[in-house]
């Protein structure tokens, strides 16, 4: 879709397919409209009558901020959970709002804060809180032909442990932006947004292949906790299963809501798959370790 037509639809409110969700987004902000054209260019717009899973509106704030230091505010359908950011950061505001919707309103999947990547159908869960390197590793692997299943959330069926793909722009922070740009200069990156509460943030545009393959769930064959340490040699170490269980529940955003089903699912995930810690001093060795994991 050409940028002008997209802007017109977004200004009125458009339903965007962000598998497995339909997101109704309304925004008059040109900075966000331009960003969506770039980052979500491979995603589909649905009919306006499509029932959305989430409704998000990102607009400017009122008052004096209309005239100076213009801000963007995300509205879901309750009071927004975030403080406004400068208007030029509206794309970050949208990603945060969508993350919040997924994390708090998804009742069908056990959600782990994790990237998920796959090679030849063999998926690896890479858990980690923000800043632990999962998105950098995800981008680096995707650049070498791995399937981009998700960079932020593993949406796991608690009965089968199958993971529903949720490809989104890969969020990179601070030094990771340079690392990925150097590793894969061909990957399309958004502008870098400096001065956010988490430093400088930028995004990698998902490929059409990632979007097209989204309806196919994946089954994990390993869980790998990443640890970047420039002083260490590359190493894969088996983690204790009990320690892994606790670490995975800590990474889940809705483990408690699932009760015993969540306990059983994490237990089966840990019992049925190797759980490893990957220590690496650079991107190349991280990718080599993950290649080793999927054989």
């Amino acid at each position, binding site marked *: 879709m050409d940028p002008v037509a997209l802007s017109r639809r977004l200004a009125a409110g458009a339903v965007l397919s962000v598998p497995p969700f339909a997101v109704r987004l309304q925004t008059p902000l040109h900075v966000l409209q331009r960003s969506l054209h770039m980052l979500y260019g491979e995603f589909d717009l649905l009919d306006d009558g499509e029932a959305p899973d989430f409704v998000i509106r990102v607009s400017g704030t009122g008052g004096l901020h209309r005239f100076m230091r213009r801000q963007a505010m995300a509205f879901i359908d309750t009071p927004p959970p975030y403080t406004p950011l400068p208007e030029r950061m509206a794309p970050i505001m949208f990603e945060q709002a969508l993350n919040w919707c997924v994390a708090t309103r998804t009742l069908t999947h056990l959600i782990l804060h994790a990237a998920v990547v796959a090679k030849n159908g063999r998926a690896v869960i890479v858990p980690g809180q923000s800043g632990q390197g999962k998105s950098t590793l995800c981008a680096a692997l995707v650049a070498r032909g791995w399937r981009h299943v998700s960079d932020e959330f593993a949406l796991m069926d608690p009965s089968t442990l199958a993971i529903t793909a949720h490809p989104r722009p890969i969020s990179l922070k601070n030094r990771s932006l340079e690392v990925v740009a150097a590793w894969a200069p061909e990957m399309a990156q958004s502008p870098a947004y400096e001065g956010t509460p988490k430093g400088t943030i930028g995004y990698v545009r998902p490929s059409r292949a990632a979007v097209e393959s989204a309806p196919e769930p994946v089954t994990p064959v390993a869980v790998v906790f990443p640890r970047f340490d420039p002083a260490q040699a590359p190493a894969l170490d088996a983690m204790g299963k*009990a320690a892994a*269980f606790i670490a995975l529940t800590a990474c889940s955003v809705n483990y408690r809501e699932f009760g015993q089903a969540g306990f059983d699912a994490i237990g089966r995930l840990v019992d049925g798959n190797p759980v490893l810690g990957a220590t690496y001093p650079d991107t190349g060795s991280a990718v080599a370790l993950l290649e080793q994991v999927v054989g």
Partner: protein
Amino acid sequence: MDGTSDIFRLAAPSGSLHWREWDDGCVIFNRTTGETHYLDDFTAYLLRLVEAAPRSQDALTGTVCAELGRERSATLEAQIARALRNFETLAVLERAR
């Protein structure tokens, strides 16, 4: 009374605790509270004993000494007392009234 003769039993109905055990420890899920807890091997062993049959701290210490061949000592008693107190706080065990 120092409390060592109070009988400890599961706070939740039978079948409420679900276990997963591995070489580096175990986790339990308490269906009554919805909480998950990590236990090291020794603490898990104590809970298994009380789950099998309610008993006092004193009796528990006696069983540990007999089964594990350990000497009864102030350190061991303090360790068991601490574990029981923690289980009580977590609503895993309670004192029989």
